[in-house]
């Protein structure tokens, strides 16, 4: 059995193509039975939001995502992993984050994908500021205690 490839981690301003990333992860592979992909999108709460401005800590963002990816590989038997997190201005309806987990079995792929998203939410150094349709600068999005609770359950 081939060694699973190293996690592919990207922090970038550009959009990504989830279908292309899935194809890259599975191309030529015979050992992947389950592929779970998560895409987080900029959602509009009430029609007032124009976009989010995502600030990040360059260097630490990549390092922290890589650490979380390594933890996922330690906890579950995985065959491949891609994580992309955008920064900068992201309009309503646009993609923010992508996690793709490849595994032999679906239970491992689902668990790892959910673990990764919970950890990214609470540990990856990104901060969202709202920009409103009326041109006003909105608030910084506040961290949710439910995200902390979601992370806690993996301990």
């Amino acid at each position, binding site marked *: 059995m081939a060694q699973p490839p190293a996690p592919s981690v990207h922090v970038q301003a550009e959009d990504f193509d989830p279908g292309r990333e899935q194809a890259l992860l599975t191309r030529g592979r015979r050992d992947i039975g389950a592929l779970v992909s998560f895409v987080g999108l900029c959602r509009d709460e009430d029609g007032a939001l124009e976009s989010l401005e995502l600030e990040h800590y360059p260097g630490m963002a990549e390092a922290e995502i890589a650490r979380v990816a390594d933890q996922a590989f330690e906890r579950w038997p995985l065959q491949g992993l891609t994580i992309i997190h955008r920064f900068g201005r992201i309009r309503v309806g646009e993609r923010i984050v992508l996690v793709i987990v490849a595994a032999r079995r679906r239970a491992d792929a689902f668990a790892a994908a959910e673990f990764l998203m919970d950890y990214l939410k609470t540990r990856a150094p990104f901060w969202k500021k709202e920009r409103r349709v009326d041109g006003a600068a909105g608030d910084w999005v506040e*961290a949710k205690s439910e995200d902390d609770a979601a992370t806690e359950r993996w301990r």
Partner: protein
Amino acid sequence: MKALYFAWVRERIGLAEEEIAPPGDVVTVRQLIDWLSARGEGYAAAFANPATIRAALDKTHAGPNAPIGAAREIAFFPPMTGG
């Protein structure tokens, strides 16, 4: 050492980064926060509620009691909201 500030910590202090030289009796992250808070109104506002401040030493998360040690870079920011 270099101090970095992000999100509303950056906005309140009015700086994204600066060189700082804390005195020798500033040993932990918490002590550095207290020392910075005394530098001016912006700092005091940024660090008014320590429960909402997160820190990283050389790009690794660090708790308030972590020793600063020989870190070359310390960052302060609010709880993360990525993902």
